[in-house]
């Protein structure tokens, strides 16, 4: 599970008002080399919940020097875009779980895939 994906996921457990962002408890993390595509990064940035991304990177110990706030004029800042690229696309959680911040319910991540499926009583 890349942090790009994590940024989109939310808990829909019955009764939960804000199941976002999910806390990451990782037991296995991998860093891959992914080709840097500045256009892709620029298009994703406006869609991201920035704080959730920084928090997630922090939880994985992979934040490095990613700033707490978006820098202005990031489109032309290749250095910044590369930092975002690394956190968004290169860091991958292979095993662990995502925890709903409100209900505490854990969603497992297995072989890199997050399982957001709810049980019948949680729907």
């Amino acid at each position, binding site marked *: *599970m*890349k942090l*790009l*994906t994590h940024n*989109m*996921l939310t808990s829909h457990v019955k009764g939960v008002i804000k199941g976002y962002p999910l806390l990451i408890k990782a037991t296995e993390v991998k860093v891959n080399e*992914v*080709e840097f*595509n500045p*256009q*892709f990064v620029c*298009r*994703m940035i406006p*869609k991201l919940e920035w704080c959730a991304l920084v928090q997630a990177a922090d939880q994985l110990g992979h934040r490095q020097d990613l700033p707490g706030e978006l820098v202005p004029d990031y489109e032309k800042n290749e250095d910044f875009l590369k930092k975002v690229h690394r956190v968004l*696309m290169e860091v991958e959680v292979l095993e662990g779980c995502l925890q709903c911040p409100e209900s505490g319910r854990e969603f497992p991540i*297995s*072989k*890199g*895939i*997050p*399982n*957001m*499926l*709810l049980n*019948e009583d949680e*729907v």
Partner: protein
Amino acid sequence: MCSGYPTPVYAHAGRGDFRDVYEPAQDSFLLIDALETDAERLRGMSPSVCLEVGSGSGVVSAFVASVLGPSAAYICSDVNPAAAQCTAKTASCNNVSLQPVLTDLVSSRGIEAAWAGGERGREVTDRFLPSVAQLLSHKGLFYLITITENDPEEIIRLLSHQGLEGESCLSTRAGNERLSVLRFHRKQQT
């Protein structure tokens, strides 16, 4: 007709670890054909996000990724854990980046979900249709593969009430039924 974009590799689907994954069939290939026909239009739109609901083997998203390239995010949802893993494998076999997620649209599990359908084979689709108008961007496109039994004309009417204009963009005979790919976009405000 010459194929501009090759069909993704998918031989692993339907066997071994992925024996419970929907093996690409006539409907998958018709959807791929429709997307290939629209390739230039899709490239011109330069989408940022592509979402596949029920990715199965991942072959359709892999195809879209090969057409649109790495400037978009490809999210693949399925309820079948084997399908999500298969999608990941299909991505790596075809040198594209797909993001599989296990998410719930129906309460049943495994490959039955792909076949169940319910009344008119619409149980799954009907639960998802109301979300389409919410999810689709103002210039986005929604493709849906249907069979005659699903009553595609009614689906078009239903989505029309939600401000989405649709039509059958490609269809073919499949036994006694007709497979159709429906394509929707937001009605333009006049």
